[in-house]
């Protein structure tokens, strides 16, 4: 179970592959579910050119550890990886990577989703967006669960 807070850009697919190679539970693992959140070029109808991501050193790391531990209690997991950027983020860069490895796919899928939703709603991070007209703090993350698909959610 690994949690990382990074101040510089990372390649989420390379990180996933490297992590699995290093921590591989080869043979026992049947399922890996992962999510990558990227910086988008627009939000609420406005063009976004850059982003600054603030965090609470100490509490943020502790909270991400708690999310990973909670997922491990609720589902049968072999491993969990959470990587989150902070600081200045460029267009298209990965902001967050969450992955869950399990023997079975339901555990991996559900744990991955749970961790992302908890991270979005409770982990201490705050985004400040750079717009063409200046900058603004993002006020809230919208819920990520839709009832029927084709409903909107934030990233």
């Amino acid at each position, binding site marked *: 179970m690994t949690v990382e807070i990074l101040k510089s850009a990372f390649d989420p697919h390379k990180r996933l592959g490297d992590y699995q190679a290093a921590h591989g539970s080869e043979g026992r693992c049947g399922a890996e579910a992962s999510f990558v959140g990227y910086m988008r070029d627009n939000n609420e109808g406005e063009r976004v050119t850059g982003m600054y991501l603030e965090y609470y050193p100490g509490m943020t790391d502790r909270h991400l550890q708690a999310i990973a531990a909670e997922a491990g209690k609720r589902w049968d997991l072999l491993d969990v990886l959470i990587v989150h950027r902070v600081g200045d983020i460029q267009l298209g860069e990965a*902001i967050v990577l969450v992955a869950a490895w399990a023997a079975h796919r339901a555990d991996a899928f559900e744990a991955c989703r749970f961790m992302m939703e908890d991270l979005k709603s409770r982990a201490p991070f705050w*985004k400040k967006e750079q717009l063409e007209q200046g900058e603004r*703090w993002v006020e809230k993350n919208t819920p990520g669960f839709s009832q029927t698909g084709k409903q909107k959610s934030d990233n």
Partner: protein
Amino acid sequence: MSVHVKFFASLRDELGRGEAQIEYVSGMTVVDIWQQVAGNEPMGHVLAAVNMEYARPETGINDGDEVAFFPPVTGG
């Protein structure tokens, strides 16, 4: 005898400072601290943490605690 207070993100900008030192008084709660730093402003959607764990307005404070106030989170 003091409590260390931190502010983050838009709340830090609004209050014009990132931290504050408050005198500790026996029996004080999170909302008491808030009122000292923000005057009559209600907490509203402001979130609080005591020693880096989420806390409620009525959570009790101990001498030496770190109390943080911040707006709704927007990570991920």
